[in-house]
């Protein structure tokens, strides 16, 4: 046997693991609580409960970028908001390896612990920069906010780190003291990325980061994300309705429809040989 094939492959544990995540708006009824109940899109025809997420299972491995695609209303953003504690899931579990070796369901820990996870383990970049940034505070303060939350009380250290991150995302030094409300959409998005990175989180959540940006700016933001992944070895979960973005960034992809994962696998495989009728339609409509 050639020497190269003797390598022992180590079974890697996922850094983020979602198990049977459900999120519904409404009480539910006997009909829609059955697993194979037929719904109108994601709404129960009997009790009109909206099932935004239905039994989502998902894994992200260390150092990998995972994509989630789906049309508007398929539950992509709800999924992200549940992981980042912006919304409370109805049921389900999420385990993060950097938090207590992944032994505890992060949805069931105390609010203080959730804050710690938010500040130290997860970084979030929202589609709308108004959600992720304090528009009236300077960019430096915005980036320092996460460091303060993570326990830093040294102004010089935080300023140096913020300067470093701003240059990392190509924002010139002389604009660092300016408030993000004076920035263009692309610049705001880059400040948001710098803020998310400021406490060195091992996991980054990106929710439609390039939507609404023009093509050249999109390309720069995507390049930036790739660079960050290579440089810091951060695992990422990327949500987008744009297959182009997913094709460029993600190694593995989950396809969502009406709150369910309908297909998952290597991104290339999904794009070349889609199995589910919805995925086929999605791929064929790609320009």
């Amino acid at each position, binding site marked *: 046997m050639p020497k190269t094939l003797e390598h022992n492959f180590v079974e890697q544990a996922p850094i983020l693991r979602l198990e049977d995540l459900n999120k519904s708006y409404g009480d539910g009824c006997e009909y829609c609580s059955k697993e194979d109940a037929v719904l109108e899109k994601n709404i129960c025809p009997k009790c009109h409960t909206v099932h935004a997420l239905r039994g989502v299972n998902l894994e992200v491995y260390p150092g990998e970028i995972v994509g989630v695609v789906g049309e508007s209303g398929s539950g992509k953003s709800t999924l992200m908001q549940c992981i980042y504690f912006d919304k409370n899931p109805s049921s389900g579990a999420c385990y993060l390896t950097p938090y207590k070796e992944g032994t505890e369901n992060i949805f069931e820990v105390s*609010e*203080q612990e959730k804050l710690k996870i938010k500040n130290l383990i997860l970084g979030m970049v929202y589609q709308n920069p108004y959600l992720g940034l304090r528009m009236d505070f*300077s960019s*430096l*303060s915005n980036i*320092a906010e996460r460091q303060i*939350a993570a326990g830093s009380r*040294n102004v*010089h250290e935080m300023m140096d780190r913020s300067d470093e991150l701003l240059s990392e995302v190509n924002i010139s030094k002389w604009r660092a*003291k300016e408030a993000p409300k004076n920035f263009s959409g692309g610049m705001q998005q880059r400040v948001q990325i710098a803020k998310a990175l400021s406490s060195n989180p091992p996991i980054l959540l990106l929710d439609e980061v390039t939507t609404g940006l023009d093509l050249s700016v999109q390309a720069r933001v995507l390049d930036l994300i790739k660079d960050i992944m290579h440089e810091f070895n951060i695992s990422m979960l990327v949500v987008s309705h744009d297959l182009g973005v997913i094709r460029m960034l993600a190694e593995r992809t989950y396809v969502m429809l009406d709150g369910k994962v309908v297909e998952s696998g290597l991104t290339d495989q999904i794009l070349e040989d889609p199995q589910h009728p919805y995925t086929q339609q999605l791929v064929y409509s790609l320009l």
Partner: protein
Amino acid sequence: MHKRYNFAFLDEGSKREIRRASLKAVCIPGYQVPFASREMPIGRGWGTGGLQLTLSLIGPNDVLKVIDQGSDASVNALNIKKLIALTTNVETVEDTHQATLIQSRHRIPEVPLTKDQILVLQVPTPEPLRAFEPREAITKKLHAHKDYTGAWLMIFEQIVKYNTATTGADHPVLVHDRYVMAPSPIPRFDNPKMDHNEALILLGAGREKKIYALPPYTKVKSIDFEDYPFAIEDLSNKSCRLCGASGVYLDEIIDENTGERSYQCNDTSYCEARRGVAQVVEGGQDA
């Protein structure tokens, strides 16, 4: 004494409710206890919180002192003092040593308080995080989760912009390593006096309907950063033009004709005592 009113103006039920809130405030130092703020014969925002605390605490043997920005003789202080004296017949003094109950607006007297005294401070904005987060429901959560990023972030933003903390008054403090508290708009000069003070300090906000407290010997630390430590106003090399005192809080007085600057004690009773001016004592049971 005008017999048309109950002793100390408020009815006994109201007094009991305010005392109950005060007791809770003493039990949880720095925590803002909601209470049913009464309509008072002075406008909300003119010291109704402090007045209600004073009226609920005062007994026939108390000796009362009321100060407004360090002055015993300002209109606001005089009117509050008159109202309390007319409805209780207690003795009122200007000398801090003799007083058992001191209601103050925006100053802590220069004379150190003792364990036999209670200081009542009038508070316009009891919420230290209000500028950072306008929603009461959210600031309550932030206090509950001990999430005080905002308090430090506000100081950080000032340092980014002006290279120093620019809080003139109302510099937030951390009480007993737990709650961040607005010390009411006392100058930074008075913040260190709160730390391990011998007297009970009660703070009342009538318009915002909150009571909070610092029990005697409570640890009180002004919010700062390692490399930008908290500092009081720089009054070195300046002394009072009347009594010559230094190391006390001074008012700056500019002569409009000559443009000449001079300084004078802000605490009038302290200054008068040093100069041997006879201080006013009025009323009391025997009068």
